[in-house]
């Protein structure tokens, strides 16, 4: 599945069940949205361990709050917003150095990249961004939020969101280019070593 993967339709019966506190309905919702929710949390938080906690807390919050969901927008959009808010809140609470300590090393060695192509490079490059830049570029480019909405989520201005987006894209482009160059060099080195062996 590509991108956000959140836009899954939820049937009315299941939603009504969850509103009544029916655990089977809640479980069905969890099973449907767990993957996209976790994936989104990892993209925002970068740390898998933190993303796991964020996802758990977001689902608990969502199930407690679902009786208040009025159905004015799709359920998946509402749930996605809960996950994003939890992720932002969690990033804000995280002391900088703790975030580094907790950081789950998702990065692979350059050797592992060989053959995986540009997508892996982009994923790694995304992790190199600052929390704010990563958040804005992901919310805008992948989740499709407008600058106005992002500004509201992070409690900043629209121009802040636009500036961050430009900066994040420029940084990503630089990182991808530099990764491509390094990958080529290593690949050439490997070929040379193989030839010697």
């Amino acid at each position: 599945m590509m991108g956000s993967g959140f836009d899954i339709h939820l049937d009315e019966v299941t939603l009504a069940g969850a509103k009544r506190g029916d655990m089977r309905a809640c479980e069905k919702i969890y099973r449907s949205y767990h993957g996209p929710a976790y994936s989104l949390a990892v993209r925002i938080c970068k740390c898998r361990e933190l993303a796991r906690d964020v996802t758990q807390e977001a689902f608990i919050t969502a199930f407690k709050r679902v009786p208040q969901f009025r159905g004015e927008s799709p359920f998946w959009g509402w749930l996605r917003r809960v996950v994003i808010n939890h992720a932002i809140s969690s990033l804000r609470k995280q002391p900088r150095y703790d975030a580094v300590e907790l950081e789950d090393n998702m990065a692979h060695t350059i050797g592992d990249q060989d053959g995986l192509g540009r997508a892996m490079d982009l994923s790694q490059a995304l992790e190199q961004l600052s929390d704010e830049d990563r958040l804005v570029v992901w919310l805008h480019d992948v989740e499709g939020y407008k600058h106005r909405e992002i500004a509201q989520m992070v409690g900043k201005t629209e121009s802040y969101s636009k500036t961050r987006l430009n900066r994040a894209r420029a940084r990503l482009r630089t990182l991808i280019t530099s990764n491509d160059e390094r990958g080529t060099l290593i690949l050439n080195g490997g070929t040379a070593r193989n030839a010697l062996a």
Partner: protein
Amino acid sequence: MTAHDEWEQNSDDPLGLRNLETIDPGHDGWADIESALLAHQDSKQASKRSWQRAGGWFAVAASLLLVFGISMRNIENPATNNPALASDTNVGASNFVAQETDNIGALIGLSQNMENQVKQLRQGTSSMPAESAIYIAELEDLIAQVDNELSFTPDSIDLWGQRVNLLLDLAQIYQQQWQIDYGRMAAL
């Protein structure tokens, strides 16, 4: 801004981030969520009663701290809280937003520092009397409630203020216990 920058600004996904695959969770957290929800349903009534019995005075104290915090903010910058005064003194809307953002940023920073302090104090505390432990549990419950609210309104200055106040109370309990422990050690 160049034409290219403008194009990129309006473009949905120029780098192809949507092509990245979703990340597999590799775990199933439903059991934990289910037990948390069931516990929540069970404890809803019980906590309501205990809160009414033991937490009345605490609510007053927390409110006073909150009011004090807000008052201090108003004293420090009256223009941001009075639109008429703001217009009189040519303080524009952008300044208001910036000031609010600064305040939230300061509170978030304070909250992070307090979180660290509480963590260190907790690690340095050997034992805790039952009464204090109950009080700590109450405070941690309240912090969890505030966190829950914050997940919906992450830019609420009042909620961040409440969080800092609750963490201050928590730190104070640990601090007092640490002093008692230290006194005992010194007496030996």
